[in-house]
């Protein structure tokens, strides 16, 4: 691991030991040191393997239904989200955003502080405090008090209806695999020898690297690159493709590139890492972009920003559950595996590896497993957000996806510079784009790029889930001034064009301003 990492103590199992009161509180909640597994019940209604978001949601829901539930966790309750993912990353992003605002205070009519110094230790202390506070909700003791049998240890299926945990056999009527995912490490010569950070240890840093290379321009890579840059780390981000966030709308990705450049991140798009070596304590990284070769020298490398499902090591074969290394556990639309007793939920089986989707899938799996439900994964409308500044949020179909399905699409675009509150906030970078089926107001999807896009996208998600047309949103009063007014403006534009006669240039001319 990287030399800049400063983890005071590790147990034999690799669990980070408490180094301050916040860490002690968190570990006491998510992996009490003196924990003793309970004696197993004769048979559980539901055994859940993995206590990340999906596992915890499933445990609470099943418990509320009156089921006898066992929850098995190999490492820490709360999983990636609480310990090494959403929670700590959002906490660090908040501080980094504040530093960015301080440096540009004059934009807001304020004085730029004379001496802006980043106290990295304090930043990370806050991250740990936030993490500890949120860990209280799903502590081992609270789960136990709620009637859930919590087991720490490695779970292995021994039969189609039994699991071994540290020598104890847990028999089940139904089981749920919710073991999550882990960093997908790129295969780069010299990287392992040189050492690297991933989201699994980046939040344990107590001192910042002076120079950081982020490999991978997906959501996590982008968020972390911007956070570290704003905390004073000289940051370079390398992305193999010509744009960041390859799934996203290209204008969104382009705006993000521009935002990175404004922050001072050195952006290397269309670039691959060839190899890494260490010289004089520094990491020397060779890059290539088409035929252009270059080298960057850094003190730390952050990578593994893609995610791979944790499907191995569970002896799923013994339970008759199919899986592979890339897709994870194979499930049908009801989240059932090939073994009809066993379900899966969350990152271990879903292409969308988001906390909220893990939550939603767990509810489906429990309903189907315990209540004879027939809820389908495909019925979910899944929004997502990359929490860069500006944020990039999306729900529904992309224009390209709709066009590939021969659906005629029209997109109503409202630049944030047309929104009064965005102007007042000096947060004009970005847009709201809402796509409808041409000549209707049926919403197909939306992309929002804005400072608070994650908060704004839910209105569109609600409209899609409820089957509400875009024109209806025009009649919804949006408090003035708010940035969400951009959505109403898009709806207004839809009303204006849809109320006009269709066909030919004359109709289109009538819609223009000139």
């Amino acid at each position, binding site marked *: 691991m990287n030399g800049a990492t400063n983890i005071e103590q590790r147990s034999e199992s690799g669990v980070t030991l408490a180094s301050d009161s916040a860490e002690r509180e968190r570990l006491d909640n998510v992996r009490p040191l003196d924990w003793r597994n309970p004696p197993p019940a004769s048979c559980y209604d539901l055994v859940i393997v993995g206590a990340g978001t999906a596992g915890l949601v499933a445990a609470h829901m099943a418990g509320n239904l009156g089921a006898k539930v066992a929850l098995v966790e190999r490492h820490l309750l709360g999983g990636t989200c609480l310990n090494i993912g959403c929670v700590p990353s959002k906490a660090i992003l908040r501080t980094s955003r504040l530093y960015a605002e301080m440096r540009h205070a004059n934009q807001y009519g304020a004085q730029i502080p004379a001496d802006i110094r980043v106290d990295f230790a304090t930043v990370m202390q806050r991250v740990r405090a936030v993490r500890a506070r949120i860990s209280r909700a799903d502590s081992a003791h609270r789960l136990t008090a709620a009637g859930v049998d919590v087991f720490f240890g490695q779970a292995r299926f021994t039969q189609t209806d039994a699991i071994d945990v540290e020598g104890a056999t847990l028999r089940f009527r139904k089981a749920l695999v919710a073991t999550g995912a882990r960093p997908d490490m790129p295969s780069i010569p010299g990287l392992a020898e040189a050492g690297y950070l991933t989201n699994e240890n980046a939040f344990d840093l107590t001192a910042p690297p002076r120079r950081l290379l982020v490999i991978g321009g997906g959501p996590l890579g982008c968020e972390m690159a911007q956070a570290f840059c704003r905390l004073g780390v000289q940051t370079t981000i390398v992305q193999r493709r010509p744009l960041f966030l390859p799934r996203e709308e290209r204008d969104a990705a382009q705006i993000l590139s521009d935002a990175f450049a404004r922050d001072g991140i050195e952006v290397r798009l269309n670039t691959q890492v060839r190899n890494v070596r260490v010289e004089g304590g520094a990491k020397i990284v060779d890059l290539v972009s088409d*035929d252009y070769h270059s080298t960057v020298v850094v003190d730390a490398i952050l990578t593994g920003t893609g995610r791979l499902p944790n499907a191995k090591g569970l002896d799923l074969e013994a339970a008759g559950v199919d899986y592979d290394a890339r897709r994870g556990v194979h499930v049908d639309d009801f989240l059932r595996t090939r073994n009809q007793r066993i379900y899966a939920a969350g990152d271990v089986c879903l292409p969308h590896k988001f906390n909220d989707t893990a939550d939603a899938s767990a509810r489906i799996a429990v309903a189907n497993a315990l209540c004879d439900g027939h809820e389908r994964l495909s019925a979910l409308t899944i929004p997502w957000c990359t929490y860069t500044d500006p944020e990039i949020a999306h729900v529904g179909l992309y*224009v390209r996806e709709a*066009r590939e399905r021969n659906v005629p699409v029209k997109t109503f*675009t409202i630049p944030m510079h047309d929104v009064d509150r965005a102007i007042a906030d000096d947060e004009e970078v970005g847009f709201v784009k809402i796509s409808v089926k041409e000549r209707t107001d049926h919403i197909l999807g939306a992309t929002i790029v804005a400072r608070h896009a994650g908060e704004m996208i839910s209105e569109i998600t609600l409209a899609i889930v409820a089957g509400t047309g875009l024109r209806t949103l025009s009649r919804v009063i949006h408090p003035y001034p708010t940035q969400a007014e951009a959505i109403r403006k898009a709806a207004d*534009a839809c009303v204006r064009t849809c109320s006009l006669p269709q066909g030919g240039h004359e109709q289109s001319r009538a*819609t223009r301003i*000139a």
Partner: protein
Amino acid sequence: MAAPSANQFPQRSGAAPKPKVPGNHTRRDAPGADADADADDVLLDGIERAAFGYFRQTVNPANGLVADTTRERWPCSIAVVGFALSMYPAAVERGWLSRDEAVDLSLTALRFFRDSDQSGASDATGYKGFYYHFLDMQSGVRVWRSELSMIDTALLIAGALTARMYFDADTAQEDELREIADQLYRRIDWRWAQDGGTTMKQGWKPESGFLHYGWEGYSESIVLYVLALGSPTHPAGSHTYEAWTVTYQWENLYDVDFLYAGPLFIHQFSHAWIDFREIRDAFMREKCSDYFENSRRAVTIQREYARRNPLEFVGYDEDCWGLTACDGPTRAMPDAYGGARRRLFGYAARGVPWGPDDGTLAGWAPLASLPFAPDIVLSTVRAMHERYPQMCPDQRYASGFNPGLTDAGGSYWVSPGHYGLDQGIVAMMIENHRSELTWRLMRRCPWIVAGLRRAGFTGGWL
């Protein structure tokens, strides 16, 4: 070439109200309209002639190559050669060049490309019928480790085919010219440029193979796809156009419905050769529009952006706009302009509404939209000339200027010298507006017609 200076521009009568009729053609029935039309024509003639003068100034008569810019030791851009080849016929028609001179210049260039090294070596001129983007002005070999460029080759070949269509005399020289133009077109292996995929790649390098990116979204590459589909020898796959256009985005922006692309040049380049009025592919049939109309709407979008001027740059308004690919200031420029304190993009494809935008405008960009919205464009051109005459010294436009970036003496930044692409598109679009010469020639070009049909275009003159 003697051209009137900016302050000698032919002025309109001033008595006539400015026509406010939306549409593609200037209304001539208002009082004083004839005088205005004459003044407009004198203005346009001067600018077109000055733009054409760029090619005479920078062509190497020994090989027909034309420089990318007027800057010293700058190489040839193959696309600029395409514009030059396209403008020689217009120059003949306007009496700026004799037919013999035009044939001679065209033939010299075509012979050079025919005989050039097509091995694909790192110091060759081309490969598979395509050419490297930048060539040495004297030797014609690749410079700057530039890419084998699909779009720039297409613009070059469009120029060659324009010459082929115009020089139709039964003479040995013009026979040879037509034969070489055909030969150059026929030897291009468009399918190879798909690299086994569905769409065209943007480029290839001998050192690293195909560039990793293709065409995403509406762009200037319609002419590339049309030429690729029209080839009688190595056509692109039949689904390639559909595979590209599936990435289009039809947007309602500033209350205008249009096929989105940010930089203005995207809405102009293919139109230099192809008359898109009332011919429609499947996408435009679905939208009840056409690419010509779309380019007119792009003008409206530019004006709306400039009126809003979200980044509050100096000079922007409805009569002062033009965000496109152009030269701009850089941080490396003299600090007298304050360049070190601002984000500046140098040569970049500026666009609306998402940028990049550093306050740099291309004075020529509105004029290159002349056929689409003549009234708006002409009033814009006059307003911009009046306010910022230094952007167009001797009636030849600088690539870009930045009204808000001034030196100690109060002079705003102007891109030094001239760029061939800018002069080419301005000259061609003025000529198309005045006489439709290139459009008329290319409407008869069998390869263009075949390519348009294979791309699914129907209607209108087609």
